[in-house]
């Protein structure tokens, strides 16, 4: 049993069956290599081995924006609430936080920033195209 955040809610998940169809990507992996296997997977996991390793953010966006992945995209590894807002913008919807980080308290961090200048997965049009003139 493990706690994780999924679609901005804390859930507990029982251990997955070993034959569950999960793709796991490390930071150096190229999402293009799994692009034709995305249909019907249980989820894609992207590992963030270090607090400051930002490669997975690009992987997230590519999976969503370029390879059209619609299923669960889970960030795992050294993740604290400080990452959540940006990770969500890059297409992640599930998060396994590092040990010691309380997922209930972390939920507030999704609202760290209420806007974003840039285009991203959650805001496909950048702020300058959304401003009401």
């Amino acid at each position, binding site marked *: 049993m493990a706690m994780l955040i999924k679609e901005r809610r804390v859930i507990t998940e029982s251990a997955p069956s070993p034959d569950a169809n999960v793709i796991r990507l490390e930071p150096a992996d190229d999402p293009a290599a799994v692009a034709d296997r995305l249909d019907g997977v249980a989820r894609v996991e992207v590992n963030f081995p270090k607090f*400051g390793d*930002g*490669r997975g953010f690009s992987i997230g966006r590519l999976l969503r924006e370029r390879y059209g992945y619609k299923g669960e995209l889970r960030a795992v590894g050294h993740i604290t609430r*400080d990452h959540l807002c*940006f990770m969500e*913008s890059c297409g992640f919807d599930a998060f396994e936080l590092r040990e010691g980080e309380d997922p209930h308290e972390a939920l507030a961090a999704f609202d760290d920033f209420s*806007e974003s*200048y*840039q285009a991203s997965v959650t805001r496909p049009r950048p702020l300058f195209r959304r401003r009401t003139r």
Partner: protein
Amino acid sequence: MYRYDEIDQRLVDERVRQFRGQTERFLAGQLSEDEFRALRLRNGLYIQRYAPMLRIAIPYGLLSTRQLRKLADISRKYDRGYGHFSTRQNLQLNWPKLEQVPEMLAELATVQMHAIQTSGNSFRNVTTDHFAGVAQDEIVDSFVWCEIIRQWSTFHPEFSFLPRKFKIALNGARADRAAVEVHDIGLHAVRDERGEVGFRVLVGGGLGRTPIIGVVIREFLPWPHLLTYLEAILRVYNRYGRRDNIHKARIKILVKERGPDRFREEVEAEWAQIKDGPATLIAEEIERVAARFTRPAYERLANLDLGAIAVPGFAAWVKRNVHPHKRPGYAAVTLSLKKTGVPPGDVTADQMDAIADLADRYSFGELRVSHEQNLVLADVRQRDLVEVWREARELGLATPNLGLLTNIISCPGGDFCALANAKSIPVAEAIQRRFDDLDYLHDIGELDLNISGCMNACGHHHVGHIGILGVDKNGEEWYQIEIGGNQGETRPGAKAALGKVIGPSFARADVPLVVEKLIGCYLERRDSDAERFVDVVHRIGVEPFKEQVYGNADQRAARHHRERAVA
């Protein structure tokens, strides 16, 4: 001055709240040292040799008097009543208290200021020409483009955890006063045959321990594609930039390891996927941003003959510290922060207030910070120049040395910085003292002398005509000297260049004498006054300078022998 709209302000306020929470979690033991380090750095907070240091962003160096007064206030209330303008056009406070930083940031937010991404592995303050908007050779108003890049690079969700810091410079005039060739990305505005604005794009330049001149990867990028192209470069860098070794993590290493051609191909391939996408800029946005800048209400004036003003001392100041303006009857003025005996770039809270008064009265309430660590009043009426000069002199800000040897760029060095090998401020002062004769300085002519306290090169020593670098020899402070560096094409044909080391390093006490010898060699060999020190170095090479400094080979051998005997 760019004025925030409601969203700009909200994001800065939200950042203050976020950082307050992060500081509290750290103090409560919920964030590790390492985690908090990454977070505090992207809010400009370093833990320095003696105390924390807070680096406050001054986007593209543009500052209002209201902001400057707030900086004065903050430096009195939370620090020791002074600040240091850095080569990145930011302001550093050297003595804040960690617990008080969220409060300081909250105060800054009230005047549309912050310390966002002034450090850490993220986009840094985008820098530009300190004469933007007033230069006679202007191609575009770089402030507008810088603000567009500022917004795009602030809290970028994909690029907030880059392999390393990332510096973008944009130059909007013919002469390059923004040093675009020595930045991670350099953008030089150009117009095509039809007059359309675009950018020449350079990547992979930079100083630090591996100084490299950037390479052009695109000669002309039409402006609507600016952000998608930047995004493509950054995506390639974010994915493939090295993260295994901090000293190899800058984009210049990636460009070098892959070679510029392969790097360009990768960027172009990535760009092909996102080109013309929603991030493509639109004219309305450029207009919207431009309209949020306050503009000086210039009067219709005629140019004055400044040479006819016979006030002793004034002419020397005009010659060095007053610069041409695109509007007749106006001039740009540099307030020098390089008075001998004051660390370069340092300014007291009282001076900040007084400078704010000056700018209010004479320059539409705005000023700029130059990467040479001076302040610029960009819009002064020529008829007010004598008055401005008098007042600046009273304040100790009228040293007439712009472009001259004593206008030294120096990092804070060993007096403040935990990374330093050696002090830099006392070296700057010793050189200024040796060259205190103004006539002699003018005779030597244009010369950039830059000092860094270690190879991180915050004092840009590689691109000084004379560059001085603090090195550590068995725990002692020594100084290595380079000559022939050049920060960029400030005049036609003079491309950026990196200095060459002239030989073994020197003890601190010897540095001024060595500089004098270098100057002596130059004066003997220059063709005319118009040939600058750096031009002579490029024409005749470093050898004659070496000889002048170290003596001929025989003397060198003898000296080596003596040194060994002493050791």
